[in-house]
């Protein structure tokens, strides 16, 4: 009974907020906003939008960020997998990169910022000996007008994501056999992989790649930390309009959100073109029979990009940790002159409330998402029908539609309903984004469960509830807790939905941290970034150690 409700509820929870949110965004852009007496169709707001200074540059920045981020991240992952799948180095790099997946985007962006800024760790390490800098140079490295540091910040976060998605797709292609075959035909390792295995893998990770494009072309938090400030990317500018106390700015913000939809759509369309180009190029290479057997440099580049991206984030996080404990720390000293707990003590009272909201929103949305994911999977199992391409796209919908474009409209509806900035509204908003990840992370282990255990339990006379709670759930403890850890990490990292639905009254460690970005106070940001890193890590620690502890007597339950 209950599990028949699962898919229905999930579809409603995913499509409802997106559909109503989009409507609530698009209608004001065309002049309909009953709360402000806007009842007439007009294109005036779109005209206003295009008379905003440098709006097309903002849009262009977003477009380029979307495509470039996806291209570089995917290239790194592809070259790395091509050159190293099946080697010992592969496993090591995988272990190095995987933890970054749970790190919020904002924390990774701060890490990069405090590493490469003029007063950052890199400059300190080489100054004054190599540079002669006694004071931080006046260089615009972070917040550069072309958005290069912003794209770098996005790339270091999307590489772990795409690597994990690729790893999930790998078992479905005969990697070793293809490599042996292409090698025996004289193809280099990279060429053999790209021509032989990649098309099948790429087909599996296409939706995640689209999600990267959609995210990077509409990112707000990373843009506020690393992006250009004078002419900010489109989504970041939209958020300032959305938060403007002058309510008539909502029309402009809505029109901007419409433009954001178009920009993300354009970025995706451009990518489809790139896909064709890539396919044509590899077909040409295959027909000509180019072997590319001197590919050591390419393989090295793949490895270097992986290690560099992870190294940057870890070094940046270490720098932030130093800052949070730093006493006096003058440029160009590589280490603080003294260490102190003062920042932590001073921050403690003000961080308690955001911390509480982060935990509550994270735990509640994860709990609901977990239950729904399990119900959906039970339903699929019972009916013997796996979700098709359409259902999967639906699941990815919250990750493919730019957040600003529908969360803004959703905010409007929540205002009408009088529930803006309440915990249930925040949980609902988080649920939309937690749900897809929860389902995707549980799917594989759920189907890997040996159903004969369930049949044995049934033949021993146990009903469905008893079978679920006494057999399936305990045996799958680790997988279920891992799903919860993934969901919780997603919730902790959510910036835009939290800012818009929390409306400044409900704040989390992520929204507080991003709000501090412009101040550039390393000590305070260090404390927040530490929490951002710690909370998801705690989730995964629970998922690892709790099952190990409960089932320590049972060897069959160890990994």
């Amino acid at each position: 009974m209950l599990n028949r409700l699962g898919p229905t509820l999930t579809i409603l929870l995913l499509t409802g907020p997106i559909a109503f949110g989009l409507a609530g965004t698009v209608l004001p852009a065309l002049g309909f906003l009953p709360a402000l007496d806007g009842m007439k169709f007009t294109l005036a707001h779109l005209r206003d939008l295009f008379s905003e200074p440098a709006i097309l540059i903002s849009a262009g920045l977003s477009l380029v960020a979307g495509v470039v981020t996806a291209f570089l991240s995917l290239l790194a992952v592809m070259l790395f997998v091509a050159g190293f799948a099946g080697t010992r180095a592969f496993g090591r790099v995988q272990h190095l990169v995987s933890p970054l997946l749970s790190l919020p985007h904002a924390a990774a962006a701060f890490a990069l910022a405090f590493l490469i800024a003029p007063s950052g760790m890199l400059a300190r390490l080489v100054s004054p000996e190599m540079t002669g800098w006694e004071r931080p140079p006046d260089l615009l490295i972070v917040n550069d007008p072309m958005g290069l540091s912003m794209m770098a910040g996005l790339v270091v976060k999307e590489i772990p994501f795409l690597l994990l998605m690729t790893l999930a797709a790998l078992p479905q292609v005969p990697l070793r056999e293809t490599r042996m075959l292409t090698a025996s035909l004289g193809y280099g390792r990279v060429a053999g992989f790209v021509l032989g295995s990649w098309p099948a893998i790429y087909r599996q990770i296409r939706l995640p790649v689209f999600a990267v494009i959609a995210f990077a072309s509409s990112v707000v938090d990373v843009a506020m930390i690393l992006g250009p400030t004078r002419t900010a990317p489109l989504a970041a500018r939209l958020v300032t309009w959305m938060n403007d106390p002058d309510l008539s700015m909502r029309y402009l913000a809505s029109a901007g959100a419409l433009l954001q939809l178009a920009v993300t759509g354009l970025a995706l369309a451009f990518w489809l073109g790139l896909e064709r180009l890539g396919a044509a190029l590899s077909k040409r290479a295959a027909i000509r029979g180019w072997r590319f057997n001197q590919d050591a440099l390419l393989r090295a580049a793949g490895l270097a990009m992986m290690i560099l991206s992870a190294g940057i984030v870890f070094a940046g996080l270490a720098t932030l940790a130093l800052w949070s404990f730093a006493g006096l720390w003058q440029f160009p000293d590589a280490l603080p002159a003294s260490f102190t707990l003062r920042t932590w003590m001073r921050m403690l009272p003000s961080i308690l409330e955001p911390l509480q909201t982060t935990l509550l929103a994270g735990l509640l949305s994860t709990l609901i998402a977990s239950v729904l994911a399990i119900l959906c999977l039970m339903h699929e199992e019972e009916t013997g029908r796996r979700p098709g391409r359409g259902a999967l796209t639906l699941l990815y919908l919250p990750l493919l539609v730019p957040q600003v474009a529908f969360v803004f409209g959703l905010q409007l509806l929540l205002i009408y309903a009088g529930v803006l900035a309440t915990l249930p509204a925040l949980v609902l908003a988080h649920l939309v984004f937690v749900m897809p990840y929860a389902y995707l992370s549980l799917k594989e282990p759920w189907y890997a469960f040996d159903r004969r255990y369930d049949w044995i339990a049934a033949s021993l006379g146990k009903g469905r509830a008893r079978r679920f709670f006494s057999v399936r759930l305990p045996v799958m403890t680790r997988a279920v807790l891992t799903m919860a850890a993934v969901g919780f990490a997603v919730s902790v990292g959510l910036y835009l939905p939290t800012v818009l639905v929390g409306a400044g009254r409900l704040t989390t460690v992520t929204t507080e941290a991003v709000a501090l970005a412009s101040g550039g106070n390393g000590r305070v940001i260090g404390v927040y970034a530490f929490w951002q890193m710690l909370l998801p890590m705690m989730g995964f620690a629970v998922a690892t150690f709790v099952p190990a502890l409960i089932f320590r007597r049972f060897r069959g339950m160890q990994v």
Partner: protein
Amino acid sequence: MGEEGLFLDGVKIALGGRVLVELTREVPPGEVLTVMGPSGSGKSSLLAYLAGFLDPAFGASGRAWVDGIEITALPAEERHAGVLFQDPLLFPHMDVAGNLIFALPQSLKSRAARRAQAEAALEGVGLAGMGDRDPATLSGGQKARVALARVLLSAPRMLLLDEPFSKLDMELRQQMRTLVFDKARERGLPVLLVTHDEADAEAAGGEIVRIGS
């Protein structure tokens, strides 16, 4: 259908319009009906249909009675079909006694009595005192015997055996066959055995049905 034993009445299993098995048979208490066939012949699907967990991709019809009760009308958990697969499938998160106690009917309330029954069942398969062991630490033969003890504790009305001896080595296989068929005879349980091993069929001693050749 007041009579005792297992009665299959026109049981038919099809996949994609192709009929795999069609069978009408009677299995008296304590006797064995052996269904033989190569893998993919549908013999395991027959067993799954009787136990109540046939994949919905298969089409199945026909009825089956045990001791006068039509089991095909009941959910799996009310059929009292004792199932043994080729893997022992002991629950990995419970110790040996936990696996056995889980199988006992809920009507037996007292914890001490449940514990005692599990202990007695272990003794019955020659594993006295092994209740505290982690199933993962048992040998293949010991696991198979615990699985048998577990099935017998659930008070089954019949036994459905899906190549339960195929993963044991030669010597153990002969021992387990004797043990399983002795227990079934002792308790008067009708047995349906599906296998592709002629020696299994021989040891079972009952009627043999060949399918899918």
